[in-house]
């Protein structure tokens, strides 16, 4: 079924074709561009498929960071606290053995039952969570451990104390620190990559997304509430801003897509972990021979090239 988007493109195309090419080359370039867009969206996920990704990314049985740690790491030691004022349970950090090497890991963590969900603040980090992550980044740098980060956060926590403790500044400084590290960094979005809360720990040499995860500047509901003035239009909003892995790959925001078991990661967590482990290992193998200075330079250059303008 044709999407609204596709219909609009077709309409514009027909209208442009109807004009005698008065604009000359400019107009025909525009025609070509529209034609290309049309071909692309026919191959891209449909609005329905995008919404399915949103639902799977938020599925209550979807594996979380610690589910993967337990399947992929040996000798895992979880570390706690930001060395300042708190231990944010929405962010898990630690060191462990992964495929024969010691790595440092940062991951967002949601809760399984209502008690754990409350304890982990539904996965929404405070500034203390980002300071905890930064402490791990420094540890990784000091000892030359590669850094892995698993992103699964609806968004940074919007609360009074979070603001008073400097939510915006913490997210900015966490990114800045990642841009200075000389060790390889690999990030994978394993569920919700929610806005500033996600990018805080995602400034990596390789950014991966699981096939049914989403990466967003704003939640579909939030976007719908603002632009459509109705949170119930979330599906339309998601179709418009395209948070799915395929579109993120196409826009150059991620480097590759990690496959999931048929039906989503929650249908077979062991297989999901195996596929994720393979992707993380391949990325690390590629990055480890690269000298620190070059890693850092290339990482910054990659992020500095993101954007589309004329």
């Amino acid at each position, binding site marked *: 079924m044709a999407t609204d988007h596709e219909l609009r493109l077709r309409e514009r195309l027909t209208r442009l074709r109807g004009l005698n090419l008065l604009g000359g080359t400019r107009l025909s370039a525009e025609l070509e561009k529209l034609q290309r867009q049309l071909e692309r969206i026919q191959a891209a996920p449909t609005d329905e498929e995008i919404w399915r990704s949103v639902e799977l990314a938020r599925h209550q049985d979807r594996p979380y960071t610690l589910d993967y740690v337990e399947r992929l790491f040996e000798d895992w030691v979880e570390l706690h606290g930001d060395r300042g004022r708190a231990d944010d349970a929405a962010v898990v950090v630690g060191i462990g053995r992964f495929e024969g090497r010691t790595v440092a890991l940062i991951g967002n963590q949601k809760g399984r039952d209502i008690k754990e969900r409350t304890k982990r603040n539904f996965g929404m980090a405070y500034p203390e969570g980002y300071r905890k992550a930064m402490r791990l980044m420094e540890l990784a740098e000091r000892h030359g451990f590669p850094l892995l980060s698993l992103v699964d956060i609806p968004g940074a926590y*919007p609360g*009074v104390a979070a603001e008073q403790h400097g939510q*915006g500044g913490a997210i900015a400084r966490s*990114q*800045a620190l990642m841009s200075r590290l000389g060790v390889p960094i690999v990030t994978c979005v394993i569920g919700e990559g929610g806005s*500033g809360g996600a990018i805080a720990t995602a400034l990596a040499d390789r950014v991966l997304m699981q096939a049914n995860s989403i990466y967003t500047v*704003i*939640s579909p509901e939030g976007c719908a509430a603002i632009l459509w003035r109705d949170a119930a239009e979330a599906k339309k909003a998601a179709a418009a801003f395209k948070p799915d892995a395929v579109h993120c790959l196409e826009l150059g925001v991620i480097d590759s897509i990690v496959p999931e078991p048929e039906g989503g990661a929650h249908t077979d967590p062991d297989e999901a972990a195996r596929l994720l482990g393979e992707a993380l290992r391949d990325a690390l193998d590629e990055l480890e021979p690269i000298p620190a200075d070059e890693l850092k330079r290339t990482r910054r250059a990659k992020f500095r090239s993101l*954007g589309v*303008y004329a």
Partner: protein
Amino acid sequence: MSSRIDVSIEHRNVPEPPGKKHPNTCPACDSHYRDDELEAALWVCPHCGHHFTMRARTRIASLADEGSFSEEAADLRSEDPLDFFDLRPYTERLAEAEMKTGLGEAMVIGQAAIDGNGCELAVMDFSFMGGSMGSVVGEKFSRACDSAAQRGVPLVSITASGGARMQEGILSLMQLPKTVCAVEDLHDAGQPMISVMTHPTTAGVLASFASLGDVIVAEPGALLAFTGPRVVQQTTREKLPEDFGLAEQNLRFGHIDAIVPRPELRAYVTRLLRLFGPNGD
């Protein structure tokens, strides 16, 4: 429950419009002024000291030595990578913003001198789509960092933004790491960044380059928050402190260095530029 939270957005963190008041009527004390009266007072209410929103070009004129400003990247324009359409197409919103503001985007950058001290300016304009940060704002800021680094001068950033430009989807989020990396490259080149946060500096801009200044100052009463008061109130039902998210609270909690009233800003920035500049200058 993920529907509860949201953060980096264009309008949401912006304070309620002050009723249907005329833009030249002071929202704090109701005094009304002509354009030229406010212009002469740097858009600060002569009666109560309220800081009105200042347009980017007016700001530049108020800081830079006369004739010293040389704009860069003025012709950069947003594309519409997602062919974004909500109730209206993004391209239409862009065209309208350009007509309304006479600006190509929500940021103006260029070389300048302030009291004889060379610097690079990156100034945001809230009138252009709420000062939201999309690909062009990110690219302009990034180029401002490079221009400062190449010429060996400090960067003075002046922000006014509701957050990320939703209509550019994930690419607008990517302007956070992009501008962060640009500041880091500037720092590696040995140059400082002075960040001046004006009302409002929120969400994506606060969570990226604006917070990375070597020195961070704010205008009195400016809202500086990752999530604005209305959303925090709606989501958490917490009782908000009187000065929630304002510059004054941020100073108290240690997030900024000073609150500098607009009439004193030029002298304050000049002093910093001299201190960061080469010895003996």
